[in-house]
C-alpha cells in the first residue's frame, strides 16, 4: 500500500509538470495578453512599462522558469486582470463549484441507483421502458438547452425557484455554503438538477446493466438455493458487485463535473470557478488559467486516488492483489 501511494504521488507530480508546460505554451500561442490589457491609446513608453512589469518582455522559457520557480514556493502568480494572487481567486470561487457539483452528484446517485435497480429487476416492463426512455432524454438533450428550459418552466412560468446566483449563504462548522439557508437551497436546486441530469442517466444505465449482468450469475442462484431472502440478494449480493463499475465511472465523472460545470455556471450565473475560467481565457489572463488547470488536475488526481482506495474496499481481489 505504501509503495502504491508513493508511486501514485510521483506519477501525479509528473502529470502536474506536463500540464503546466502544455498550458503555459498553449496560452502563449493564443495571443498576447498585453493587447488585451493595455488601452489602444496608451503611449509606447507606458506600454513597454506594463509589459516589463508583467514579465512579458522576456523569452518564453525564462517566463516559464520564473513561473515554475515561484510555483515551487507556493506562488502561482498574480492575475493580470485583478492584480491578485491567482490561487486566491480560485479558492475564493472553488467552494461554490464544489457545492454545486457535490449536490448534483448526490442527486444523481440518490435517484439514479434506485431507478436503475428498479428497471434492472423488472426488465422489459412498463416501468423499465419509462425509466429507460427518460434516461435517453437525459443523455441526449444538450445541457445548455436543458438549463434554459428549467429556467423557463420553474422560474419564468411557475415562478417557484430563482434562476441566478447563489442566494444567501449560511455558516456551519466554519464552512460558508448555500446549503445551510433555505434561500441558498432554492438557488441551488435548478443548477444542481441541470448539472446532474446527464450523470443521473448514466448512473441509471450503469446500475441497470449491472443488475442485468449479475442476476443470471450462478452465485445469485446459489444464494437463492441457500434460502436467502430476495431483498438480501439484491442489496448485498448483487449490489456489492455493481458498486465496482459504479465507483469507477462516478469517480471519473465527478472530475469532469467539476471541470466542466462551466456551462451550468454560465447559464445560472453561478459564481464558481467555471465562470472564472471562461472569463480568464477571454482576457488571456494566463496565471489564472494555469493555476485553474493545476488545481483541477490535482483534484482529478485526488479523486482517482480515492476511487482506487474505495475500489479495494469493495473488491477483495484488488485489495489482496496490491498487498502481495
Amino acid at each position, binding site marked *: 500500500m505504501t509503495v502504491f501511494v508513493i508511486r501514485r504521488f510521483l506519477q501525479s507530480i509528473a502529470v502536474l509538470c506536463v500540464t503546466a508546460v502544455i498550458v503555459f505554451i498553449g496560452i502563449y500561442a493564443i495571443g498576447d495578453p498585453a493587447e488585451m490589457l493595455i488601452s489602444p491609446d496608451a503611449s509606447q513608453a507606458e506600454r513597454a512599462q506594463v509589459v516589463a512589469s508583467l514579465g512579458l518582455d522576456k523569452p518564453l522559457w525564462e517566463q516559464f522558469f520564473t513561473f515554475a520557480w515561484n510555483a515551487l514556493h507556493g506562488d502561482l502568480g498574480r492575475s493580470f486582470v485583478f492584480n491578485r494572487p491567482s490561487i486566491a481567486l480560485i479558492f475564493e470561487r472553488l467552494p461554490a463549484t464544489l457545492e454545486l457539483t457535490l449536490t448534483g452528484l448526490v442527486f444523481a446517485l440518490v435517484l439514479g441507483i434506485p431507478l436503475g435497480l428498479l428497471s434492472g429487476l423488472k426488465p422489459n416492463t412498463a416501468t423499465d421502458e419509462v425509466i429507460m426512455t427518460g434516461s435517453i432524454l437525459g443523455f441526449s438533450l444538450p445541457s445548455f438547452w436543458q438549463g434554459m428550459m428549467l429556467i423557463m418552466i420553474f422560474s419564468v412560468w411557475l415562478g417557484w425557484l430563482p434562476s441566478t446566483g447563489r442566494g444567501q449563504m449560511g455558516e456551519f462548522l466554519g464552512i460558508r455554503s448555500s446549503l445551510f439557508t433555505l434561500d441558498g437551497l432554492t438557488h441551488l436546486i435548478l443548477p444542481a438538477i441541470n448539472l446532474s441530469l446527464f450523470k443521473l442517466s448514466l448512473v441509471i444505465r450503469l446500475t441497470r446493466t449491472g443488475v442485468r449482468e449479475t442476476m443470471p450469475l450462478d452465485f445469485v442462484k*446459489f444464494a437463492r438455493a441457500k434460502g436467502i431472502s430476495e431483498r438480501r440478494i439484491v442489496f448485498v449480493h448483487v449490489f456489492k458487485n455493481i458498486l465496482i463499475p459504479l465507483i469507477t465511472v462516478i469517480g471519473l465523472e465527478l472530475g469532469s463535473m467539476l471541470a466542466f460545470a462551466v456551462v451550468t455556471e454560465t447559464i445560472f450565473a453561478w459564481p464558481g470557478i467555471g465562470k472564472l475560467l471562461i472569463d480568464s481565457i477571454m482576457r488571456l489572463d494566463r496565471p489564472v488559467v494555469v493555476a485553474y488547470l493545476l488545481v483541477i488536475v490535482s483534484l482529478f488526481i485526488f479523486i482517482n486516488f480515492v476511487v482506487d482506495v474505495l475500489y479495494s474496499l469493495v473488491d477483495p481481489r484488488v485489495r489482496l492483489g496490491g498487498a502481495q
Partner: protein
Amino acid sequence: MTPVLEVKNLSTHFMTRRGILKAVDDVSFTVGQREIVGLVGESGSGKSITGFSILGLVDPPGRVVSGQILFNGEDLLTKSPTAMRAIRGKRIAMIFQDPMMTLNPVLSVATQMIETVQAHDRVSRTEARARARDALGLVGIPSPEERLDSYPHQFSGGMRQRVAIAIALLHRPDLIIADEPTTALDVTIQSQILFEIKRLAAEFGMALIWISHDLGVVAALADRIMVMYAGRIVEAGQVDGVLTEPRHPYTSGLLSAVPAAVPRGEPLRPIPGFAPSPLSRPSGCAFRDRCARATDVCATEPMLEIAAGREFRCFHPHLWSAA
C-alpha cells in the same frame, strides 16, 4: 418408510418465442431416505432442470407446468414463495457445477455461510460463525477458523467446492441435489470430493440426487441410477443392474461410449446422430432416429415397463439371459 422425495409426472416447459421447449417431460421418480440416486444424461437432457424444478428455482420463461413434487409427503408445488424459501437451504440443499461461479466474489466465506445459518435459524452471529467453522472443518478444510475470513478467490477450485458443500451441510438437510459438482475439477480432486460427499451423506443420513453425465462417477457413488434422454427418464434401476445389463438401447449406447467400460483395444462406439432439438421432438420414442433396434412401432409412445425392480421405456429392450 416414506420416501424423502416423490416426483410424479413432473413437466417443466420453457415458453420461448420459437415454441414450447419441453425440458422435462412427464418425469416420475422417488428418492428413499438415505438413498443416493444418480441422474444421468447428455447435456440438454433435462437433468439439471429437474433439479431446479424440485427447488422451485426454474427461471422464466421456464415454468413447472404440471405434476407433483412430494417432499416428505408435502407437495412443494403448492407452497408459497416464502414457504419454499424456508425449505431451500434448510431441508433441501443444492450444490452447483462450477465452484468458481457459485460463491460471491465480493463477500467473505464467513459472510456467505453466516447468512445461510441466519436465513433459517434465529441465532447470534457468534453462534452462526461457530457453526460455519464446524461445517468447514467437516468437509476437510484445514484451519477453518482462519479460512472463514478468506474470500473465494483465495481458494482453489476443489476447496471452493468443499466450501459450497459445507454451506449445503449447514442445516443438515434431508436431501442434497448435487448438479455435476465434480465435473469442473481435476480427476484427483474429483475422487476426494466424491469420497467426502459419500461419507457425509452416510454420516448425517442425507439422501442425495447426483446429477451427472459421467457414468463412472455415478457407478462409484449411487445406489440407484436414472437415465434421462430428451426430457424423459428412459431407464431406472439399481446401479449394478443398469450398468451391467442395460435394457434400454440408449443406456447400452452410453455404456459402449465410455472408455473405461470398453475392453482395451476395442473401438469406442459413439451413439450416431445428435439428441433431437427440444423444440421439435419426434413423436413416440425420442431416441428412435439414433437407435439400431427401432421399428415402425417406435413412432408411438412407449409405455413405462416395470420388471424386476427395473423401469424402462422401450418396445425393443435388450434381453439378458438372467432376466
